[in-house]
């Protein structure tokens, strides 16, 4: 029996830019995923709780405020701490190249830089979740 893929598109922190997150949520839906969208202004704790209650395969975080180096690793840490280390976390937004290595060391599986096409993100999710 083939499982339906489930994903949480999460907005963490105070950043209100949701254009990218909403586009991504729709694109995942149109690719056959079940998408839970968190809504804006969530704390890392809230994102982790949602990911676990919803038993998603992956969490996609979008952030354009520059606070990714604090908030992304915090989400990863909390999800792991709550025992769901099977959940794959990835992210995107205004993230400079130089931060990618640090984020990957902090439990984020992949970072998509500005201008990445939806196809690339969806293919990656298809293969890695």
């Amino acid at each position, binding site marked *: 029996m083939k499982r339906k893929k489930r994903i949480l598109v999460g907005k963490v922190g105070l950043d209100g830019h949701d254009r990218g997150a909403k586009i991504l949520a729709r694109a995942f839906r149109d690719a056959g995923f079940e998408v839970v969208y968190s*809504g804006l202004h969530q704390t890392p704790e809230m994102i982790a709780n949602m990911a676990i209650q919803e038993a998603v395969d992956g969490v996609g975080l979008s952030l354009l405020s520059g*606070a990714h180096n604090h908030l992304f690793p915090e989400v990863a840490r909390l999800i792991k701490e709550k025992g769901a280390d099977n959940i794959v976390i990835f992210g995107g937004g205004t993230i400079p190249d130089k931060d990618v290595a640090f984020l990957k060391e902090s439990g984020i599986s992949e970072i998509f830089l500005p201008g990445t096409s939806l196809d690339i993100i969806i293919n990656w999710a298809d293969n890695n979740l």
Partner: protein
Amino acid sequence: MGDCNCRKGANPCKPEEQKAPPKDKHPPRCYTTVSDQKIEQIYTPTDIGSFNYDEKLGAPGEYPFTRGVHNTMYRGRVWTKRMFAGFGSAKDTNQRYHFLLNQGQTGLSVAFDFPTLMGYDSDSPMSKGEVGKCGVAISSLADMEMLFDGIPLDKVTTSMTINPPAAILLAMYIVTAEKQGIDRNKIGGTIQNDMLKEFIAQKTFMCPPKESVRLIVDTIEFCTKEVPKWNTISISGYHIREAGSTAIQELAFTLRDGMEYVEKAIERGLDVDDFAPRLSFFFNAHMDFFEEIAKYRAARRIWAKTMKERFGAKNPRSWMLRFHTQTAGCSLTAQQPYNNVVRTAYQGMSAVLGGTQSLHTNSLDEVLALPTEEAVTIALRTQQIIEEETGVINTIDPLAGSYFIEALTDKMEAEAMKYIETIDKMGGMVAAIERGYPQKEIADAAYHYQKQVEKNEKIVVGVNKYIQDGKLPIDLLEIDPEIEIKRNENLKKLRNTRNNSKLNETMAGLKKAAEGSENMMPHIINAVREYATLQEICDVMRGAWGVYRDPGYF
């Protein structure tokens, strides 16, 4: 597969107008604007019908102001070059302001960090990781005094991009001026203070729409009487466009927001001509050159007609739509970032041809971080080249009378009015927001555009065409992560050294005003003067009015 997937909106492309099927991965070129509005191959006199000059355009500085709000336009006064800046601590930003003023900039524009924008102090748990990242962190009057240290507030005008706590930042500015010995009736500037577009697009919100509008009307009422040179609201389409709207949606939703504020201020008992001249607008300058110019011209015409006919304004200054423009951040690319200089130059040019009163040109690195000093300088020079070298300022509204521009201006006006009527029928903008109408329209448009880019129906140079391997290195501004710790210490000290019993008195007055209907502004000023923090004041509002949370419309 010869169709282009044009918007099924006002004027979709017909399949038979498309060229042969594509041989490569690029579909046939679709002759539409960036908003997917169809453009004809040629425009002729038939496209503008029986064109009545006085009715459609009028002289510059005269109703309906299609050609501009001043009779001399840029010969009389060139637009203000106002570069948005703010990062890290108040001290860092103060240094940048001194630099910009020395470079020939003529007005200041403050960018705040997310905690400040959302009404949290730097030491709140909600602020962790965000302090000073996207702008300057201001938590109390002490920070404001530092921000404008050595800058006489009667000599500059200051624009503050702030919304839910706009009244508080204005109060801090008033008290900072007071401490410089400058009376509040001498200071000039703008607070953005436009909450409707926050619910619609930018999503920096705090309390529910109705209560948010009440606070805005409080500031309008207060400034009309006490701070006459202050622009109490900058009714903004910029963020609506950045959230992915079309040009027509930007135009329509922004103007309808403006109408909502005018309605509410009149309901408060204000005379429209007492406050309307201080209303100003803020638009986006996106990539599509002519569509943008038509947008600004249509905006002036709609506003003039609306103020005169719908609201019965008698003072010609109430009919004028004055606006600030910022080039489109969302059009910038991380790929081949130097191309952003070119994009910004064309966008800036469209704003000038559209008659803007002030302009911010984005820096080439803004898609990745806050701009460096070097990048900001190039952006400012871009404006100076438009003014000094291109000759576009020599004559007023040079594109007037072009069949294309006039037809497009008419079309933008007509389409925007359809949206405005729809929202009127819903019972106004607050009602429309509560049912998610503008939010959904924008989300649809944003997804539609993204799919067009994915299918190469819309081209973004360097992203889906003319892709280049390898990256061009650019230096990025780094924000000191230690700033959070330093600010926490400062705030702790502030809370211990201020006169807390005097503060508590002012806070009690504030709470009473929030729960009742008294104007909030005098109470906010009193609290600010006693060094109440931003969040302390916001918490009073949240307590009295409730917290608005993202309904997440799709």
